[in-house]
């Protein structure tokens, strides 16, 4: 569903990606952990096609239309209302905004408020709705839990679990091992542009993964 082959990329003299290869099959969720500056966001951008890697190839089945992206930034227009934002992005994908999306994320009563009037947590929920409105088959998530309140974090976890159960693929990058492990079927550790660990999670809990992560990164 998603394949990376020998990805290499550097910014000036800084090597952000160094020989990264992996595949993600339908139904799998790959969680990539790494400290800041390890190249996680660059990797995600290469997978999304936002950055052309200097070497190697990244392929997503179904192309750009198949990708849903949730990043640090909500990618919303602050002066527009929630509904107007979603309608705009839906129009680019040639779909209409699915009716139950707003209710699933608890956004119905906020639909006609401008995004700039919403709290950080609500904005992030709108960003999630934005990423899911075209029913993507591959989700790319960059620190998606940052800034989410408890309710929204649980809603997102539930959505991601459904997404995986429906035979779709997810790649999630974060520096927080506690957040991502529960959802992952596969785990990778990234340091200085390289995968230093890549294996199925195989029932490991957050604590065990966290310990291995600290050992691998240190």
């Amino acid at each position, binding site marked *: 569903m998603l394949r990376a082959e020998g990805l290499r990329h550097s*910014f*000036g*003299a800084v090597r952000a990606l160094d020989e990264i290869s992996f595949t993600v099959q339908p139904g799998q969720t790959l969680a990539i952990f790494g400290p800041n500056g390890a190249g996680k966001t660059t990797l995600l951008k290469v997978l999304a096609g936002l950055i052309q890697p200097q070497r190697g190839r990244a392929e997503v089945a179904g192309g750009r239309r198949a990708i849903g992206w949730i990043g640090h930034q909500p990618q919303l227009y602050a002066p527009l209302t929630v509904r107007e934002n979603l309608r705009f992005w839906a129009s680019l994908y040639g779909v209409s905004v699915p009716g139950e999306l707003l209710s699933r994320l608890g956004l119905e009563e906020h639909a006609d408020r401008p995004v700039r009037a919403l709290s950080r947590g609500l904005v992030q929920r709108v960003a999630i709705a934005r990423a899911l409105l075209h029913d993507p088959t591959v989700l790319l998530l960059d620190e998606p839990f940052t800034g989410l309140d408890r309710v929204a974090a649980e809603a997102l976890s539930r959505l991601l679990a459904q997404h995986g159960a429906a035979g779709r693929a997810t790649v999630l990058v974060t520096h927080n091992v506690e957040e991502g492990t529960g959802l992952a079927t596969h785990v990778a550790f990234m340091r200085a542009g390289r995968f230093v660990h890549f294996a199925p999670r195989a029932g490991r809990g957050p604590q065990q993964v966290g310990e291995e992560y600290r050992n691998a990164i240190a």
Partner: protein
Amino acid sequence: MRMLRAGRWITVVGLVLLAGVYVRALAYTPVEQSQGLAQKIFYLHVPAAIWAELAMVFVGLASVFYLFTKDPRLDRFAAASAEVGTVFCAIVLTTGPIWGKPIWGTWWTWDARLTFTLFLFLLYVGYLLLRGAVTDPAARARFAAVLGICGMCEVPFIHLSVYMFPTLHPMPIVLKPGAPSLPWSMLSTWLFSLGVFTLLYVGFVVQRYALSYLREQLEAVGEVGHA
């Protein structure tokens, strides 16, 4: 580094020959009748103007190929060519008024060719400022290439717009249809000077190219040292 040294040598040879051009122009070339000694500046002014414009064309061509190949050498060459073009524009813009004062009786006039060179100069300055304002090397190269291509395409339009103004400028003497109406001694001095300016362009560009290559290497070492 070999390339830097080569560039220095070419430039030194060019400068020595430039002195030669002036010895020849002052001592062995007849004084033009209507303009007198002021005409001697023509041996500096016109070759510099020709190379100032050609340099922009080279910036544009290198930019086109850069966008296709993403080869950093083309970007380095475009930057070097733009810097040299800026210097040549500055030469034209200073020698022009020096000649204009005795001949036209004024330092500056919105004459077509002078105005054209001024806009060319502004194009170069914008290009160099844009390069200075972007920190990421890949983005800098892409942005500069976009501006370089636009700049090259802009040149004919500036020509079109400035030539609608009335001009006091001497009409082309060398590059006009038919045989040049210039005594052979003057023409040969001028051709000699054009050759020297070509040499100077090459020498400067090679040096700038080598310097920016060295700086990139140093930056790379510095960054790796910090990480």
